Every structure is written in structure tokens, then in C-alpha cells.
């Protein structure tokens, strides 16, 4: 499952958010269209940057790829396998769990992504869930901590960190799952140049190792630094 090509394929995807409050008035439920006949292909080993103005649907595309939303029309395939609401929302769906391991999602707001009392536990959460032996979990956590230069923060609470440090922790705790695809929603928003450089270096190495990266951003310099393939929206 999920081993086919291309890695991500959105074909003729439409999406509309249900407009709040409109469903009890007797009128047709109001819908706010975000995506209309949107197509996107991301191949394995590629680095793709989504560019476009605010509100054009970049976050929605990322949420669809992570199976947090489902297209109202059109199809989404991950690794050749169609991702549907039925499969994902099945009770205790193994399909969903396998998919979530394959895709890592770094939220735009790290404040609402980090929920552990310490950075160490935050990074260990994924590997522990995967049922890896304790020694392997520890090895992975240590590797990731070194990779993201987080030694100073291991026992600190994510809540206590600055915006840039939180973002680094968020990328680190997602990467500890070793996903095939890293999806980052405007990762450089809260990063200063130093933190940006670190994250860009890690992502570049990740792509060079054959993994895939999809980011959304407003900054052209990071696109250049990553050598990303640009997809313009809107």
C-alpha cells in the first residue's frame, strides 16, 4: 500500500468549506468554495513549493493531503492508493494510521501542534506509538535532537520556548516518524534567519536522501535555498 507512483496526485479536486450557521435556515447550505478543479502531482524525491496569496487554499490542499479534509469532487491518490473518507474514518482504521505515518504535517501554528510536557517526550511520542523497542526509540530521539540542535531544550516544556524554537521542535517531532512526505505549512513564518537556515539544511538533506517535501510559503529566498519546484496557485 502507498508504494506506487506518483507519491501525491490530486486530480480535478474541488473543495468548499461549509459556511457556518447556514444549515438551519431553510436555504441551501451556504458553501464557501476554496478549490476548483485543482491538480497537483508530486513525485518521489521532489521538493515542491506552493506559492500564492492568502486564502487561495494552500492550507486546504495540505489538509486534504493529510486526510484531515476530503475533496467534495475529484480524487486524491497517495502512492497510487485512493484516499477516501470511508477508508480513513473507519473505526480504528489501520489505513489511516499507515497513511499518517507516511505523511508528516507541520502545522502553521506550532502552539496547537505540541501537546507534551517536554521536548524529549514530544519527539519520542511518534516512535513510541509505532511500537519500536525502547532502545530504538531512544536512539531515534537522540539522533533527531542532534540533527535539530535541540540538546539544550530536551527537558524544557515546548510551551516555554520561543516561536522559532517551537517550530524547530514541531518539525523534529514530525520527522521522528520518518515519513515519506514532509508537508510544511508556511514553516518560515516564525523563524529567524538562523533557524530558517537549519530547517532548510535538514529538509535539503532529507530530499537528497530520497524523501519528498511539500511546503507552502510567501518567501522566495527559501524556495531558492531549497531548490524547490514551484507550483503557483491562483
Amino acid at each position, binding site marked *: 500500500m502507498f508504494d506506487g507512483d506518483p507519491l501525491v496526485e490530486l486530480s480535478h479536486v474541488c473543495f468548499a468549506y461549509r459556511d457556518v450557521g447556514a444549515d438551519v435556515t431553510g436555504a441551501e447550505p451556504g458553501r464557501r468554495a476554496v478549490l476548483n478543479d485543482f491538480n497537483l502531482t508530486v513525485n518521489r524525491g521532489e521538493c515542491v513549493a506552493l506559492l500564492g496569496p492568502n486564502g487561495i487554499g494552500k492550507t486546504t490542499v495540505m489538509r486534504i493531503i493529510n486526510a484531515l479534509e476530503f475533496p467534495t469532487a475529484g480524487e486524491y491518490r497517495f502512492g497510487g492508493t485512493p484516499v477516501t473518507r470511508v477508508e480513513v474514518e473507519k473505526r*480504528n482504521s489501520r489505513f489511516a494510521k499507515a497513511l499518517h505515518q507516511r505523511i508528516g504535517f507541520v502545522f502553521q501554528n506550532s502552539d496547537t501542534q505540541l501537546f507534551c*510536557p517536554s521536548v524529549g517526550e514530544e519527539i519520542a511520542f511518534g516512535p513510541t506509538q509505532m511500537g519500536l523497542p525502547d532502545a530504538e526509540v531512544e536512539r531515534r530521539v537522540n539522533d533527531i535532537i542532534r540533527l535539530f540542535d535541540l540538546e539544550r531544550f530536551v527537558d524544557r516544556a515546548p510551551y*516555554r520556548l520561543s516561536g522559532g524554537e517551537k517550530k524547530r521542535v514541531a518539525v523534529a517531532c514530525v520527522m521522528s516518524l520518518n515519513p515519506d512526505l514532509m508537508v510544511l505549512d508556511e514553516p518560515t513564518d516564525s523563524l529567524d534567519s538562523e533557524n530558517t537556515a537549519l530547517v532548510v539544511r535538514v529538509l535539503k538533506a532529507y530530499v537528497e536522501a530520497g524523501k519528498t517535501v511539500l511546503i507552502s510559503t510567501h518567501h522566495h529566498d527559501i524556495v531558492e535555498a531549497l531548490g524547490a519546484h514551484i507550483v503557483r496557485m491562483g
Partner: protein
Amino acid sequence: MLYDPQSVTLAMHIPDNFISPSTGAVFWVIMIPVWVLCFRSVIRNSTPEKMAYLGAGAAFSFLIMMFNVPTPGGTTAHGVGGALIALLLGPQYATVAVSVALLLQALLFGDGGLITLGANCFNMAFVLPFVAYGLYVGLRKILPDGWKERVAEFIAGYIGITLAAFCVALELGVQPLLFRDAAGQALYFPFSFTVTIPAMLIPHLAVAGVVEGLVTVVVVEFVRRTAPEIIEANARVTTSDGPASSAHSGLRTSAWIALGVVALLSPLGLIATGDAWGEWGAEDFMAATGLDYVPQYIAHGFTWNALLPDYSLAGLPDIVGYILSAVIGIAVMTIVFRLLALAVRDRKAVGAKA
């Protein structure tokens, strides 16, 4: 699940019609001084900051009260979170926050009744947080170091919710003793103490209390580890500044006032809801429509006295049952207030030490 979880979120919410309007009114009367004092002690000089924190605290309470907690076996259960909110925010703060949350639940979402709002607030926004906080502060002092924090938090949650459930059982159980029509049919909740007390206490002692206790431990320990200053600040706010302690003594006074009011209202309620309400027409209507026709011999065979064989009250007039329940109610409230007073004393002692 058989019913829409959205509308019946908690077993603890008493809907309208389950208790008589007079019972509802009694709890409104009890809660008004409590609300005033708690609100005043939280928002002594109404800085915008306090308003914002109060709003966030109430919204947090609202969300926590609708949160589904996982239980062993893959199912989920609703906690109430009153103990948790009390330990995180302080008891007066919790009273205001949970009351606002309950008001919005009733008004905006139709969860829990409007007439019963006073009773629901009494159980979940007053008894639960104050008992939990009092136990927590008291136990932290007497327990040995090591696990004392966790044990105190667990017991606070466990006893807090169980006692709140006990209050619900009393409020519901007293209804068939007080309010029946001429044929002996209950006007509101049909079961008496013999049913309500075990029905509320057994699941809470066995499951819900444990879940509430564990959730309290997990969340309070999380906050203690990540942001200890928030918990400590809350403890300091309620102890170190002068007016706070006067608010506590005010609270105690109001508690005695409330007790007095209950004692006074009990006979009033009896008069108002007893035989003064004319029953003419009721039986005629029932008989005519056949809607709930009750053969006379069954109605007479099942008076409430028959439901309480252990109390050996058969044959005694209604007033005995009424006085009995009033005595139980007042005794329970006295116990609660004594515990609150203990909490206040302990908090002062902790404040003096700090």
C-alpha cells in the same frame, strides 16, 4: 450511543421538569449570594485583564465539560472537570467559570434546564469545586511527601464528583416524596432515594469518579510540569492579599445565610406545592382522555411509603418525609460548608507559610 451526545452531554445535568419549580427556585436562591461573593472576590477591581482571564477560564470549562475521555475498552466517557478547573483556577474562580459555562450551555445549546440551572450550578459549580479544592489543600498538608500531590489530586476529583452526584441523587430523590398528585402519582422525577442514591453513587464510585480523579491528576501534573507558576500564582492570589480572606469569611457567612434560607423555605415549599394547588380537573381530564388512567387500587397500593420499607415510615403523613429530607439536605450542606471552612483555614495557613 442512543441519543445525540450534543444535547445530553452529562449525566449530571438535571433537565427541566425533573425537579419541581420550587426546588429549582430554592437552588437559585442559594446560588445568588454564592455567585455574587465569588464574582466579587474574583473581579474585585474590574481590570480588563481579569475579564479576559475569566472569559478564557469559562470557555476552558465549557470545552473540558464536553470532552470525551477515553476509558479502558475503547469507549469514551464524559468527565465533568469541575475538580480540575478548581485546582487550576481556584475555587471561587471555578464557581464563576463553570456557572458561566453552564449558563451558556443551557441558553445557547439547550443542554440542561433553565429552571434547574440553579441546582446544576450548585452541584457542579459550587459543591464540586469547593469540596475538591478543600480536600486537595487539606490532603496536601497531611499526606507524606512523594506521591502526595497526585494522591491529593485524585481524591479531590474522586470525592468531588461523587459528592456532586450525591447532591443530584438527593435533589431528584426528594421529588416523589414531596410532589405527588391525589392518586399518588409523582409529578416530577418518579424515583425516590432508594433508587436515586444507588443509581448515582454506584457508577460514580466505581467508574466516573475514578476517571475524573485520573483526569485531574494527568492534567494538573501536566500544567505543574510545564507552567508551575500558573498553579502557584492561583494559590497565591487566593491567600496573600488581604481582601481575599475577607471574601472567604463573607463566603462562610453567605453559606450560613443560604442554610437559613433553605430551612425557612422548606415549610414554605410544602405549603406552596402541597395541597394548596387545586387538583380538581386533573383526574377528570385523565379519566376522560384515558391518557394515563390509573386503577384506583394500584394507585393506593403504591404510596411512597411502600417504596421505603426500610425507613419504617408507612402510615406517617407526608410532612415526615418532607422534614426527613430537609434534615438530610441541611446536614449534607452543613458538612459541605464545614469542609469549605476547613479549606479556607488551610489556605490561610499555606499562605502564611509561603
